[in-house]
């Protein structure tokens, strides 16, 4: 009996040691950026011995970076003090707009593909899904000139439209598989009770499909928030530059005020981290559909 307890203790020790190594690998860079963001410059740039825990933690870097804009070491600053705020605003608008549109569209389309028999429905489904492996890059060149000719360059609307189009296939697939797994009887019962289709979708289907819709919403939000290439190409002023693009502008060619850079970075990664910790299950399911069922 005791031998068994010893073995179990050894096993746990080994597992926790391995877990520690994994955690250090996964989290150390994040830990360091957080520490950097609350350190003052003197402590941060100390060498060769670094201050792993700041002695005088400060939130001044956050205040500075939000009100004064990025300051370079020599004292110069970017022309627009509020670039970071406008970046956060733009990204929030685009990410929320895209996720909302995608959720609604994919629920309706997913319902249509899962339940309704309409002409050429199989063909339409493949038409949508075919685009999934298509790298965005093949469309970009002409998409740029399309958006330009519509006069929509450097607007949040153009980004919402493009991201909604891009997230549609995966979202529709996720919703149609999700809705297929919901028992049909409830919907049929409510239709027999005299509800029309729109009432049925709103009051019966939506609540039942809510976990699926949540997945779609969160994954779309995360992907849009994290995107870089598309905003880099389609935006050029603070009217629509996303937070990731703004961040890339913060790195000067020769010098960087690292403690402020760190504060700006922390502001950018807080939402994804919160989402990941709170809604892990929904996110992982959304991000790995297609991979597992494909």
């Amino acid at each position, binding site marked *: 009996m005791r031998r068994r307890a010893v073995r179990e203790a050894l096993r746990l020790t080994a597992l*926790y040691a391995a*877990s520690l190594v*994994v*955690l250090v*690998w*996964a989290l*150390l*860079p*994040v830990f*360091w*950026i957080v520490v950097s963001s609350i350190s003052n410059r003197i402590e*941060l*740039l100390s060498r*060769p*011995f670094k201050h792993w825990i700041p002695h005088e933690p400060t939130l001044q870097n956050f205040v500075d970076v939000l009100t004064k804009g990025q300051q370079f070491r020599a004292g110069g600053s970017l022309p627009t003090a509020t670039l970071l705020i406008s970046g956060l605003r733009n990204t929030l608008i685009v990410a929320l707009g895209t996720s909302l549109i995608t959720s609604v*569209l*994919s629920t309706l*389309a997913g319902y249509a593909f899962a339940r309704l028999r309409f002409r050429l429905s199989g063909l*339409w489904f493949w038409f*949508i899904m075919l*685009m999934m*492996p298509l*790298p965005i*890059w*093949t*469309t*970009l*060149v*002409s*998409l740029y000139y*399309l958006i330009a000719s519509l006069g929509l360059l450097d607007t949040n609307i153009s980004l919402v*439209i493009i991201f909604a*189009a*891009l997230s*549609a296939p995966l979202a*529709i697939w996720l919703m149609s598989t999700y809705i297929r797994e919901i028992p049909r009887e409830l919907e049929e019962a409510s239709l027999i009770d005299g509800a029309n289709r729109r009432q049925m979708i709103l009051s019966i289907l939506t609540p039942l499909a809510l976990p699926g819709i949540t997945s779609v919403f969160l994954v779309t939000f995360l992907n849009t*928030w*994290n*995107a*870089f*290439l598309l905003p880099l*190409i389609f935006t050029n002023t603070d009217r629509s530059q996303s937070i*990731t693009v703004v*961040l*890339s*502008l913060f*790195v000067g*060619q020769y010098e960087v005020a*690292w403690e402020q850079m760190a504060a700006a*970075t922390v502001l*950018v*990664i807080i939402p*994804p*981290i919160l*989402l*990941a910790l709170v809604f*892990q299950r929904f996110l*992982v399911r959304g991000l*790995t559909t297609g*991979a597992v069922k494909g």
Partner: protein
Amino acid sequence: MIPVALLSVFIYYPAIRTFLVSFTSLDLRAPLNNHIVLLGNYGRLLTRPEFWQVTGRTLLIVAMVLVVETLLGFLIALLLNQKFPGRGVLRALVILPWMLPPVVNGFLWNWVLNGEYGALDGLLYQLGLIDSYHFWLQNPGAQLRWAALVQTWTRFAFPTIIMLAGLQSIPRELYQVADVDGAGPIARLRRITVPMLMPSIAVALTVEFISSFQIFDVVWTLTSGGNAGNVINPFTKTLMVYNYQVVFRDLKLGLGSALAYLILLMSLGAGYFFVRSLYARAVER
């Protein structure tokens, strides 16, 4: 059907137009001199030393990423497949890097690897492993290796999750039978776990191949020089960065479109290869 309309206008139409443009010599610096060159752009790319250099470099990054990611993902999946208190927390924390914007990951590591004030230097120095600070990103070979490492850090959670799902679907009876037969842990790993995991590994490899083949964000902020006005670092120019340069810096649309389709072709070819050789064979067995 709004999604169909949306996709037609904003994805298919541009994709087809790009395809057509790839057969012309369209160059925005000389827009009037536009004529049809058929496969000329493809020929020009394929005979350019720079194209092969960039492709080779990209494949080198891909190879490093795939090997390290698969091994790492496998080991972490094995760990997460064990039952112990705190496993849920570990799983939640391990996927964090995957959730962060890849662009930010370039910055994070750029700062960690900083040669004057970086955390890696500080850590190694304080542990007594080095006696002076290094500039980690100084030479071209190192830049490629670090780019591969950062890409690995960004993406390793995906193969981990896929393989974990694969591990959990292996029937327990197989292991019980192996126990009865007296197979040791290594034999069980070789004879049961790895073969049963092959479909998951194939899926992970395919997705990760495409993702690292089209690496852009990480390279852009780790070693390419950062903001849009800067010179592109030639030593870490990958296919996507090359394509960006041809289209949006040099404004050679015809050539850039052809390059985009070459990249698509190579991705599809590799995807087909992985699915055929790994997935199909694993499933047949």
